[in-house]
């Protein structure tokens, strides 16, 4: 089944709902979309350490249980760090939501298929790791409902969003040190 949702449209729908949530985005396309659609100090862009996006977000969620943390990961990156799902399940942070843009390819490197193209089911893997609130989303209306749940209910959540293949236009702003500093300061300024 070909996915019709785009990553940019799904990012836009999330951005409309954001208030004081932290958003951590995966290197490459996830960060590019987030920068272009809704750049804000409470965004934590990542540029390296492929696979670690969900772990970085977990560390933020554990250190700031008063804030909701949304992680925008990619299928290729999450597949590199599946153990992270077990750690998320074991720690059980209620303020944590992992959204996976699953386009079934390594988009940034030229579109080579990932294991999800061959049938690996990230939602089933997440459930197997012990995350009960794991769901796969294909349509916009489903996605809206999933966002409402993950921003309103106790987590942890895993929302795997089947999105269309394709690169986003534009160029990632790679102020690696500056963005980390801006994020840390914005977080420190938010009262607990």
């Amino acid at each position, binding site marked *: 089944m070909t996915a019709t949702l785009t990553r940019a449209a799904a990012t836009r729908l999330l951005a409309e709902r954001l208030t004081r949530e932290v958003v951590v985005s995966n290197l490459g396309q996830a960060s590019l979309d987030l920068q272009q659609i809704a750049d804000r100090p409470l965004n934590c862009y990542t540029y*390296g*350490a492929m696979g670690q996006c969900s772990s970085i977000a977990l560390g933020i969620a554990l*250190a700031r249980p008063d804030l909701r943390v949304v992680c925008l990961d990619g299928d290729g990156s999450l597949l590199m760090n599946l153990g992270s799902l077990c750690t998320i399940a074991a720690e059980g942070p209620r303020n944590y939501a992992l959204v996976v843009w699953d386009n079934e390819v390594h988009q940034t490197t030229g579109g080579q298929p990932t294991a999800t193209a061959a049938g690996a089911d990230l939602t089933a893997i997440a459930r197997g790791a012990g995350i009960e609130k794991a769901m796969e989303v294909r349509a916009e209306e489903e996605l809206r409902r999933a966002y409402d749940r993950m921003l309103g209910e106790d987590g942890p959540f895993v929302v795997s969003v089947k999105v269309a293949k394709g690169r986003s236009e534009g160029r990632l702003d790679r102020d690696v040190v500056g963005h980390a500093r801006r994020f840390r300061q914005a977080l420190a300024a938010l009262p607990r």
Partner: protein
Amino acid sequence: MADPSWSKHVADVLRRNGLRMFATVPDYIVSHVLEPLWADSECRVVTVTREEEGVGLLSGAWLAGQRGALLMQNSGLGNCVNALASLNVASQIPIVLVISHRGDLGEFNPAQVPMGQATGPILDALGIRSIRPGSIAELEAQGDGLIKLGYTRSLPVAIVLPPELTGGKQG
């Protein structure tokens, strides 16, 4: 003969410098440091599935205002190299690494030796300042200064635990 109180000294150096978040893939040696941390209600210890995950987790914790340390065997340092380079060094995110040094003096397992020899050069290649205290006195003399330097530079630092300090692992 190593003084068995070494592990409490390591835990105390970490705690008195404000570290409260810990990630680990345990090994025989660092498990002795983990015991007082597990018993401390102010400290959170997260057992990760692979050391690299701990690098990500502690980096997130620091961005959210919390200091932390990753406790692991030096084999785990090998699992962390790219994350330390492309996340911590590139973005200037400090974390403390506490690394038990297998594969050096007295080692019984040939599989440990290559990483044992590579440990120092890997840290040096990443520009990660490290200490390798051979005694509790050396640990006490250098530990606070190392951690302070790490947060001043905003870069990772490493306390490497040699068998002279810990007694190593007997095979």
